[in-house]
């Protein structure tokens, strides 16, 4: 009875998922093993994939293996190439997985692991994977059209413009916040700075090798690059042990921020083959390798979760970022649960590679589940640290002071314990002078990963190398994102500018290239600089803005998806996209409103501005603000941030209203439901 047997297996997996979640939720005051989180996640993914994604593949799109995909019909050997599904899967996964799913869960660990694991798993099954899959199917049925094009054609020109502006907005905030993560990871760390600095000449050497020495031998060059990366790791350690050299490379946050801006400017105007492409190969390779290694390390060591399931900081007083668990956990973890950015990938390269429609389920829904699993691993790595160490690393100096003793005192007041000597020992062990207030998520993730890796491989002596390896791995792909993002921003800006004054749009006209690149760098650089100099740590204001902008893009994607489903005459299945859309709208609106208007000065931009105004009026500056000019700049930053949040909220409303109008018109019959899909054509019987 194979059918009954299969039903039994699925019932068992479902029971396992529920049991594991129950175990996680009911663990009060005891330490549970990471195995429970892994079981809850993996079993839920299996059930969601088997049953929920089938609604989309079978009922909504009726995916048909005999229907020719754009790759088959439009095969040009370049953009449209029918590709094996495992290769597309790997390619799509490498494109969607980045620092996002690693940093968000690390920050949200301040609430404990329970809110994080629930949102990551439920959010991906009902939200993120649905979005990626629906957009992928929609694009595949429309010759690989982009999200922006579909928004314009399905909803209307207003939605199209909103999508365009949302992409530019999210890009600016994303680049700033990722820049801040790198700055905080490298601040006062000669080892990290030297190693990351060396990745630039390594990538250039690879570029030169590929251009002139052995053209086209990408794997050979990447292999050599990887060897050079390991050498750079050891060289960084050596530098950090030479007092004079170490002092030279011990840089402040502001110096690093300016260096990163200058670097990104040059990187984005240099030829792609010289720096960006080789480093992209390197970082894609390292990314996939590290994610596999992390999964292996976690499965082998199954670390205990030292963080409580729920901490007291769900009340909004958290030091890592301010705000209650609702709505802030849901915007802090974007990638991993649902990320609007993925809609760009699902309507970008991937739909043009799909060999068969039947592959879309595994690639659209499946790779998002895998990204979610990466987020679960990041959450495990963060919660495997003791809460004392986690908060000492992730809380800004304004919350824990600048010495191990003051940090221990503050952390004791929060109900956790931290031995100041332990903090000193840990810093020494990883080859840093201090690990206090290394905000941004990367250092604590690196610490968690170093513990897991060294537990599985290498023992105590290897902790320092693993720590810096993890920092290097994150910084490597953040830098790649920075210059790729700046370059894309530049093209978008030139495209927009070209509509006003044609010569500005010419991509090879240097004055336009330089001005638009500089403009993009200055835009995100302004936010980055503001974050670096913010006494509250920068992450507190920038990460929520990034979360809101990313969820705004997801709102656009889900509106497009819902519109397409309704126009297909499948309105009864539109709940699949409307459910996450409703939830995201609530999250975005509440979070945006609180970031602007909350009376708590740590949350609300306006009340924070007023509190600084009061300080200026009183004439006595606190130690964290150096001068009156700084105080005034903080006020204008607050107004700017409030304006950005308001802009994202208004955009959300605009896109929703435009979509509602379209849905109403179609459902009420005043507008004909016409599918804009490319008509069916069968796959040629014999391939070539």
């Amino acid at each position: 009875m194979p059918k009954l047997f299969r039903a039994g297996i699925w019932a068992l997996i479902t029971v396992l998922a529920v049991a594991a979640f129950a175990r996680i939720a009911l663990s009060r005051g005891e330490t549970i093993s990471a195995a429970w989180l892994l079981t809850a996640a993996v079993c839920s993914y299996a059930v969601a994939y088997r049953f929920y994604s089938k609604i989309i593949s079978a009922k909504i799109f009726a995916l048909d293996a005999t229907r020719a995909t754009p790759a088959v019909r439009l095969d040009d050997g370049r953009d449209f190439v029918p590709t094996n599904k495992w290769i597309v899967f790997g390619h799509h996964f490498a494109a969607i997985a980045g620092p996002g799913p690693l940093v968000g869960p690390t920050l949200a660990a301040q609430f404990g692991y329970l809110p994080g694991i629930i949102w990551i798993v439920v959010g991906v099954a009902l939200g993120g994977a649905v979005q990626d899959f629906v957009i992928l199917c929609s694009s595949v049925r429309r010759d690989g059209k982009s999200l922006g094009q579909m928004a314009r054609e399905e909803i209307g020109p207003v939605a199209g413009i909103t999508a365009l502006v949302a992409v530019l907005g999210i890009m600016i905030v994303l680049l700033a916040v990722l820049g801040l993560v790198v700055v905080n990871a490298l601040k006062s760390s000669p080892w990290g700075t030297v190693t990351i600095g060396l990745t630039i000449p390594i990538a250039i050497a690879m570029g030169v090798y590929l251009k002139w020495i052995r053209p086209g031998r990408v794997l050979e060059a990447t292999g050599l690059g990887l060897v050079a990366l390991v050498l750079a790791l050891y060289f960084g350690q050596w530098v950090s042990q030479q007092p004079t050299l170490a002092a030279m490379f011990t840089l402040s946050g502001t110096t690093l921020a300016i260096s990163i801006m200058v670097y990104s400017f040059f990187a984005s105007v240099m030829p792609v083959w010289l720096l960006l492409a080789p480093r992209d190969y390197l970082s894609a390779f390292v990314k996939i390798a590290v994610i596999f290694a992390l999964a292996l390390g976690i499965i082998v060591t199954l670390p205990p979760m030292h963080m409580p399931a729920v901490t007291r900081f769900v009340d909004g007083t958290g030091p890592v970022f301010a705000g209650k668990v609702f709505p802030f956990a849901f915007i802090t973890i974007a990638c991993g649960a649902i990320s609007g950015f993925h809609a760009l990938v699902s309507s970008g390269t991937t739909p043009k590679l799909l060999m068969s429609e039947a592959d879309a389920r595994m690639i659209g829904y499946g790779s998002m589940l895998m990204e979610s699993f990466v987020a679960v691993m990041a959450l495990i790595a963060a919660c495997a640290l003791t809460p004392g160490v986690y908060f000492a690393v992730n809380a800004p100096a304004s919350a824990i002071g600048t010495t191990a003793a003051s940090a221990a005192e503050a952390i004791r007041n929060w109900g956790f314990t931290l031995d100041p000597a332990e903090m000193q020992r840990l810093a020494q062990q990883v080859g840093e002078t201090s690990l206090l207030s290394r905000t941004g998520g990367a250092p604590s993730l690196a610490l968690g990963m170093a513990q897991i890796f060294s537990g599985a491989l290498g023992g105590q002596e290897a902790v320092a190398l693993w720590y810096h390896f993890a920092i290097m791995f994150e910084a490597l792909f953040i830098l790649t994102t920075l210059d790729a993002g700046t370059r894309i921003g530049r093209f978008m800006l030139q495209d927009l500018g070209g509509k006003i004054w044609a010569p500005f749009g010419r991509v090879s006209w240097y004055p336009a290239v330089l001005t638009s690149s500089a403009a993009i760098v200055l835009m995100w650089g302004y936010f980055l600089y503001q974050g670096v100099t913010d006494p509250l740590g920068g992450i507190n204001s920038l990460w929520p803005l990034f979360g809101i902008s990313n969820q705004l893009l997801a709102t656009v994607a889900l509106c497009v998806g819902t519109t397409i489903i309704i126009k297909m005459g499948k309105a009864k299945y539109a709940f699949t996209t409307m459910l996450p859309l409703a939830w995201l709208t609530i999250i975005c609106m509440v979070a945006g409103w609180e970031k602007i208007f909350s009376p708590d000065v740590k949350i609300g931009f306006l009340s924070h501005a007023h509190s600084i105004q009061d300080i200026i009026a009183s004439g006595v500056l606190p130690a964290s603000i150096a001068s009156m000019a700084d105080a005034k700049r903080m006020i204008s930053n607050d107004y700017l941030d409030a304006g950005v949040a308001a802009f994202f909220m208004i955009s959300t409303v605009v896109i929703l209203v435009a979509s509602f109008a379209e849905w109403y018109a179609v459902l009420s019959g005043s507008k004909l439901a016409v599918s804009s899909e490319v008509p069916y054509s069968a796959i040629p019987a014999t391939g070539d």
Partner: protein
Amino acid sequence: MTTRDAFEAVRHNLERAGCVVRRVIGVPDYDIYVTHLRSRHPDVVPPSREEFTQERQATKYSKPGSRCC
């Protein structure tokens, strides 16, 4: 099977694995393009490997959609 055959088999498999890895990390595939041109457009002279790579990379990094955060 002779040693030579075994060696050939290993080499062949390594080459295939290399091909997969290259495409996963997003290297433009010149050979596929040339094969495509030969079979569908025999009259077109294929660009050189360098021209092809340059054009592919410029396209890839000029619009959003090839990567995420």
